[in-house]
């Protein structure tokens, strides 16, 4: 019994590549409130466990159970965890004394911080920048819009997931923590924020097309408010609407209320002929 137990197989490069693809495709397919991405994680680990313990179904079952526990992170940058876990599981199968609780703890302690980093970079910075450029093209009916968007997003998605799992696998826990604590992510997010904010400033002018249409009659003279405002700062109304919405969101007012307020404001303003 002892003999067959110790007969383990290491993972090949191919195994890792297939695991990356499994995670990439399956992470969210059964996304749910009960355990979020747990099924995706277990689906990625399952075949690896079978490979690692060819003659030991009990270990496969134990492994699948520990990877069916609650898991949720940003699927691209967070995949660093998957790389580390695969490396740990491989070491464990080769007979190293690794506590199974240590693996579970590692997953739950890293998934939060990595979700924070990943969501900021992917959802808050990279995607809006790509979208901003592509929407500019698409708004004029240019096919480049959708085309470049797909290439940029699928490419980013695949490359980052791939990079994250491989780095996690080869570098292990210590290297990841040193990267997290180092200045790299701070620099990266600062850089992206600057680029994003600058583009956002231009988007205010490009995409928010609301302007004054009010022409009040003062002392028998028609005064076009738009022309008046344009002489001082053009596009004041789009900027004001954006800044007030932003201020409301920062004050913790729910998005749905801000949406409703904007709706009412514009509906009334438009109906009265003040803006349009």
């Amino acid at each position, binding site marked *: 019994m002892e003999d067959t137990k110790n007969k383990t197989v290491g993972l090949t490069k191919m195994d890792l590549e297939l695991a990356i693809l*499994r995670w990439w495709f399956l992470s969210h397919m*059964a996304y749910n409130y009960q355990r979020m991405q*747990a*099924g*995706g994680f*277990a*689906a990625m680990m399952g*075949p690896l*466990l079978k490979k690692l313990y060819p003659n030991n179904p009990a270990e496969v*079952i134990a492994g*699948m*159970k520990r990877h*069916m526990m609650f898991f949720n992170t940003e699927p691209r940058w967070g995949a660093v965890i998957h790389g580390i876990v695969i490396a740990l599981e491989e070491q464990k199968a080769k007979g190293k004394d690794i506590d199974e609780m240590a693996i579970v703890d590692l997953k739950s302690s890293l998934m939060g911080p990595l979700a924070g980093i990943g*969501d900021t970079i992917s*959802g*808050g910075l990279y995607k*809006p920048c790509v*979208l*901003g450029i592509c*929407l500019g093209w*698409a708004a004029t*009916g240019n096919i480049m819009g*959708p085309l470049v*968007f*797909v290439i940029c997003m*699928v490419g980013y998605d695949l490359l980052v997931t791939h990079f994250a799992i491989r780095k996690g696998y080869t570098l292990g826990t210590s290297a990841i923590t040193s990267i997290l604590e180092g*200045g790299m992510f701070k*620099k*990266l997010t*600062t*850089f992206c*924020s*600057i*680029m994003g*904010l*600058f583009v*956002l*400033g*231009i*988007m*205010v*002018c*490009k995409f*928010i097309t*609301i302007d004054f249409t009010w022409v009040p009659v003062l002392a028998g003279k028609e005064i076009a408010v738009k022309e008046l405002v344009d002489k001082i700062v053009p*596009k004041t109304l789009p900027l004001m609407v*954006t800044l007030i*919405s*932003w201020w*409301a*969101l920062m004050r913790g007012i729910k*998005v*749905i209320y*801000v*949406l409703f307020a*904007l709706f009412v404001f*514009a*509906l009334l303003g438009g*109906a009265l002929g003040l*803006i349009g």
Partner: protein
Amino acid sequence: MIEALMVAVLGWLQASSMPLAWWLIREPIMAGFWVGLIYGKPVEGIIIGAAINVAFLGWNSTGGANPSDLYSAGLLGTAIAIQGNITTEQAVVIAISLGVIGNYAWILFMSINSFIPSLQDKCAEQGNVRKLVFLQIVPSQFVVILVRGVPAFLAAYFGPPIIESLLATIPVWGVAGFNAVGKVLPALGIAMLLKYMGRKDLLVFFGAGFAISAFTGMNNLLFAAILGAAMGYVYVALQPKEAVAVGMVQGTQAPVKSKEASLYEGEDEI
């Protein structure tokens, strides 16, 4: 009928929750393109999709905080707008209103799927990897067809006449108000994004971007991104070294630095 069925298939595929579906169909800019193709007006589809997409710039996939559902807004909004005589601004208003209802589809999806991990637990106990992977992929597809595909068909087939007759009953001043709403709502998407990336010490770059565009009329976003990347690079490069090295192990400083350099070169090209 066939067109509406194809929209229903899009509704299923866009929410099948895999990366290719996210990027190929989920975003309104993409949904608009496909719907446009189905109805033989791809250019209009892209334009309407893009307009809807602006309002969703700050949409994040973590869920919960989104006022309107990205999936249904993009797909159903374009499907209805492209069939009728509806302006782009009106399409944005219709899309966002549909998205508010569409949020429930997401909640339903996540709730019904919550049965799946319990079934997967049983596979784990039996060591049945294949069945676990099967459960990860297949059952949720039926959920998606139910909560996304069927509503998409109904909206694409019955939606346009209903929406058009509704629009026909609105008086002229109401239409003006409606159009103004469509022109204002993109501000919400931008404001949400601003909340996300708006660090106080960096807000000056937002102001600079606005001022340049407002006064010169420059609105080429690719040019803006290149300019923004250059400013970001200079800003980060000029920061004092001490601030960067905080918390970093002395010995690892050199290799980490070289990695940063290569990362920025990559970003510059965007």
